[in-house]
C-alpha cells in the first residue's frame, strides 16, 4: 500500500537496518520487527506514555514517532537500559518503594523519570509531578512512583 524506506538506526547500541513503510511508527518497529516489547501500546495516540523510549537522548512517545524519520538516530529502550546508571538506580528504587503494580506503565515511567533526572537531578515532589504528568498509571496512585524517583535522585547524587 505504501512505499517502504530503508532505515538504519541504532537500537540499544546495536545497529539495525529495516525496510519500513513510511507510516510505520517506531513502536511498531520495536515491538513487531525487533521483538523489543518493553515499550507498551496503551493508547497509540501519545497520551498514556507507556511507549516512552529515548531517541538521541530525548524521551519520546514511540507511538507518535515514525521509524522512517529515525535514520541515523539512536534509540534506547528499557531492554537496553540496564547499563545506564540512572535507570539502574530508578529500577532499584521502584522495586523497593512498591512503585509498580501491574507493571504495564513501568518501562515508560522509568524512561520518563530518567529524562526528568537528566534535566533536574534533584527534583522536588512538585517537579516530579510536573515532569511525569504525561505517564499514566492506573494502579499505584502515583505517590510511590514520586517517592521512588526522588530516592533514586538522592542515590545518584550521593
Amino acid at each position, binding site marked *: 500500500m505504501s512505499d517502504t524506506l530503508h532505515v538504519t538506526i541504532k537500537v540499544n547500541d546495536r545497529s539495525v537496518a529495516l525496510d519500513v513503510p513510511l507510516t510505520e511508527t517506531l513502536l511498531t518497529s520495536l515491538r513487531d520487527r525487533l521483538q523489543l516489547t518493553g515499550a507498551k*501500546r*496503551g493508547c497509540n495516540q501519545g497520551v498514556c506514555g507507556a511507549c516512552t523510549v529515548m531517541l538521541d537522548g530525548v524521551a519520546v512517545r514511540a507511538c507518535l514517532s515514525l521509524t522512517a524519520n529515525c535514520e541515523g538516530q539512536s534509540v534506547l529502550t528499557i531492554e537496553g537500559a540496564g547499563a545506564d546508571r540512572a535507570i539502574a538506580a530508578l529500577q532499584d528504587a521502584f522495586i523497593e518503594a*512498591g512503585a509498580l503494580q501491574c*507493571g*504495564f506503565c*513501568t518501562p515508560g515511567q522509568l524512561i520518563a523519570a530518567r529524562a526528568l533526572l537528566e534535566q533536574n537531578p534533584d527534583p522536588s515532589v512538585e517537579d516530579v*509531578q510536573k515532569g511525569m504528568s504525561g505517564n*499514566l498509571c492506573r494502579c499505584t*496512585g502515583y505517590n510511590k512512583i514520586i517517592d521512588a524517583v526522588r530516592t533514586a535522585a538522592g542515590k545518584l547524587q550521593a
Partner: protein
Amino acid sequence: MSAPSESVGRRVPRLESREKVEGRAQYIADLYRPGMLHGAILQSPFPHARIRGYDLAEALAMPGVHAVVTGDDFAEPNRMGAFIKDEHALAKDKVRYVGEPVAAVAADTEAIARAAAQAIRVDYQELPALLSPEEALASPVHIHEGVEQYFKVFDAGSQGNLCSRTEFTEGDIERGFLESDLVFENHFETQAQAHVALEPCGALAEVDPQGRLTIWSANQSVFRVQACVAEALGIPMTRIRCLTPRIGGAFGNKMEPHVQPIAAALALKAKRPVKMILSREEDFEMVRARHPFRIRIRTGVKRDGTFVAREVEVLLDCGAFADDSPGVLGFGLLCARGPYRFPHVRCHGRLVYTNKLRFGAYRGFGNPQVSLAGESQIDDIAEKLGMDPIELRLKNILRGDDRPLGGQILTSNGLRECVERVRDASGWGKGAPSPAAPGKKRALGFALCGHISGLLASGAIVRILEDGTVVLNVGANDIGQGSDTVLSQICADALKIPLENVAFVSPDTDGSPYNWGTTASRVTFMTGRAVVGAAAEAEKQLKQQASEMLECAVEDLELVAGGAVAVKGVPEKKIGFFEIAKRSHWFAGGPIIGSHSWVYDNPTVDPKRAAAIGLPFPRIGAYSFSAIVVDVEVDEVTGAAQVKRAWSACDVGRAINPLLVEGQIEGGVVQGIGFALIEEMVWDGARLANPTLMDYKIPTTREAPYELYPIIVESRDAQGPFGAKGVGEVGLVPVPAAIGNAVKRATGVRLFKLPFSAERILRGMLGTQQ
C-alpha cells in the same frame, strides 16, 4: 505460631518486580507463537438492528486473509453469562449496541485483518434504540426477545427489558418511618466510568496437536475464561486449556470474557494461532464499564441521631447484556444500608437492558454508587440535627458483634478504629484547613464503608519437591495487585520456610486447582485460607515422615524455622525438609502433596431476620471496612475541586504485606478521585463520544494528592489467613461521598450527580444547579 514471622507482615517487594522494571514481563500483546495470525473485529455501527446477512466475499478475497467468523459460526444455544446466559461471542441475528463485535478476521498482519474486517458487508435492518432504563422499561420493543426463557443461575424475574430485580427487607420499613422523628429523601445519579486498565484487552488462541484449544488472555480468572469459551463454542471444558500472561491491570473489566471466544473461533477456523489485541478505542467501546445508577434514598432518624429506617431504590442501566450486572444490583442493594444498625431496611432495585455496551464488574461492584447516596445523606442529616457527622456515624455504626444486613455474622470489625484513626490523623474538628490562596474554599469531608471479601470457591496445592523446596499452585491470577507475593508469603510462613523456597505456579486450567477469580477483594482471604489449609496438610505429612525418621510421636513434633521438623522443646533434634522429601520420594510414603479447597458458605441473609427476592449470590460475607477524610479545595471562579490531602484507614484484618496494602489503598483512593471529579463516559446519541484517552481523562500526577496517607487497621479476622481480609475495593468505595461532603462543607453546595465537575460545582455556587 510461636516463632516470629518469617514472611507475614513484611514489606516484601512484589516477587516479579525485576522482570517488570527490566521490560521482560510478558503481557498478552507481547506473546508470539510460530505461524501466528492477527485478528481484528468489525463493530456494529447501529445501536439496535437485525442482521439480515453478510457479504464476506471481498474480505475473504484479500491477500493474507485466512479466516472470517460471524454470528453464524456460533450456534443458537451457545450463550454465555455469569448470571443470565444471554450473550453470544459475536452478535447473532441482531446487534444491540454501537461497537458490538459483529464479525472477526484472522490475517497475516494486524493491518490486513483490520482492513479485511472493514471490507465485510453486513445487511442491517435498524430497530428502535433504547438508550435509557426508563425508555427501555416503557418500550414494547425488546432488546432480548425471550429473556424469560434464557438459562439463569438465580430467580432474576426477567421480563421484557427488565433484566433482573432484587429486594432485601428487614424489620418493618413503614413502621420504621412512622417511628422516626425526621425523614430525609434524596435522589442521586452516578455516571458510567471506564476501567482504563493501561493494558487493553486481548487474547491469543491456538489449537494444539491434540486438537485442544490453548488460550492466553488478559484476564482475571483462567477458569472463567475456560467456562465462557466452552459455553460460547458449545464444547466441553476438557477441550480448552487457559493460561495467563502477566496482566496489565484489571479492575473488573477482565473478569468476564471480551475477545477470548472470538480468538478461539478464529484459531479453530484458520487452524493457526490467532492473536487479537483491542485498540484503546475498541476497549472503551466493547469491553464493559461501571454502571450508571439512579438512586432514591430515604432515611428516618430519631432527634438524638439514632438511625431507624432506610429505604433505597435503585435503577441500573445494564447495557445490552447481563454480564455481571445482576450481581452488581444485588451487591449494591446489600451495601445500600451502609455498615449501620438500621432496624428497618428495604432495599430494592431493577436492572434494565439498554442499547449500550454491557456494564459490569468494576472495583466496588455497586458499592461506590450506593455509598455516595448513603454517606452524602448522612452528612446532611448531621447538619440538620446539629451534630458532627463523624459523631453521628459513631453512634450508629455496627459494633463488634452486630449483624449486618440479613443477619450475617461479623468475625472481625475494625470500623470504629478506622473512623477514629482518620479523624485523629486529619485534625478533624480542629477548624477548617486554610485555603492556599484567595478565591478558594476549603474543607474536610468524611465517609465510610463496609465491603465483603468472602465468596465462591478457591483451592490450593502445596507440593514438597525432592530437595525440600515448595511449589505453590492456586490458580489465582495476579492482576498487578500482588497476590502471587502475598500467597507465597502465607505459604512460606505457614511452613516456616524462607520466601525464596516457594515457587509460585502461573495459573493453568490443566494443572491448577479451581479459583473463581481475582475479583471482589477475595484472593487474600479466600485463596489465602486455602493456602493455609494446604500447607497444614503438607505439614501433617511432613510430621508423619519425621515421626518415623526420628522415632517419636507426631504430637511431639513441630515445624521450626528454616524448613525442618523438630521435637518440641528439643530444637537440635530435627530433620530437614530435604531429608524428608528424599525419603518420601524414594523410600516411603510418596511425594508430599498438601491440598485444600473451600467455598464461602455463610449465607448472605438469615431468613429469620430478613427476606430476599432475586438474590444473585446466596453466600457471601467476610466484611472489611474503611473510613476516609479528604481535604478538598474549591476554586470559587472555576468551580474546580481538588483533593489536597487524604487519610484512608482500611480494616484489612491483618496486613500480610503492608507495602502492597498501601498500594491498594493509594491506587483505590486515586481511582475514586477520578470517579468523583473527572471521569465520565459520554454518549452522543447511541455512540460513545469519548472512547480515547485524549477525551476520557483519568487522574495523572496532577490530580492525585501527594499527601495521601494510607492507615492500616488490623482487626485480626478469625476466619482469615493469619487474620487477613480483603483490601482491593474498600479504599475506593467511600471516596466520591467524602469529596461531595467536603465540597458541601466548603461551599454549602450539595451535589447529587457525579462527577462533581467544575461546571456542576460552579452552577451550585451560583445557584443555577439543574
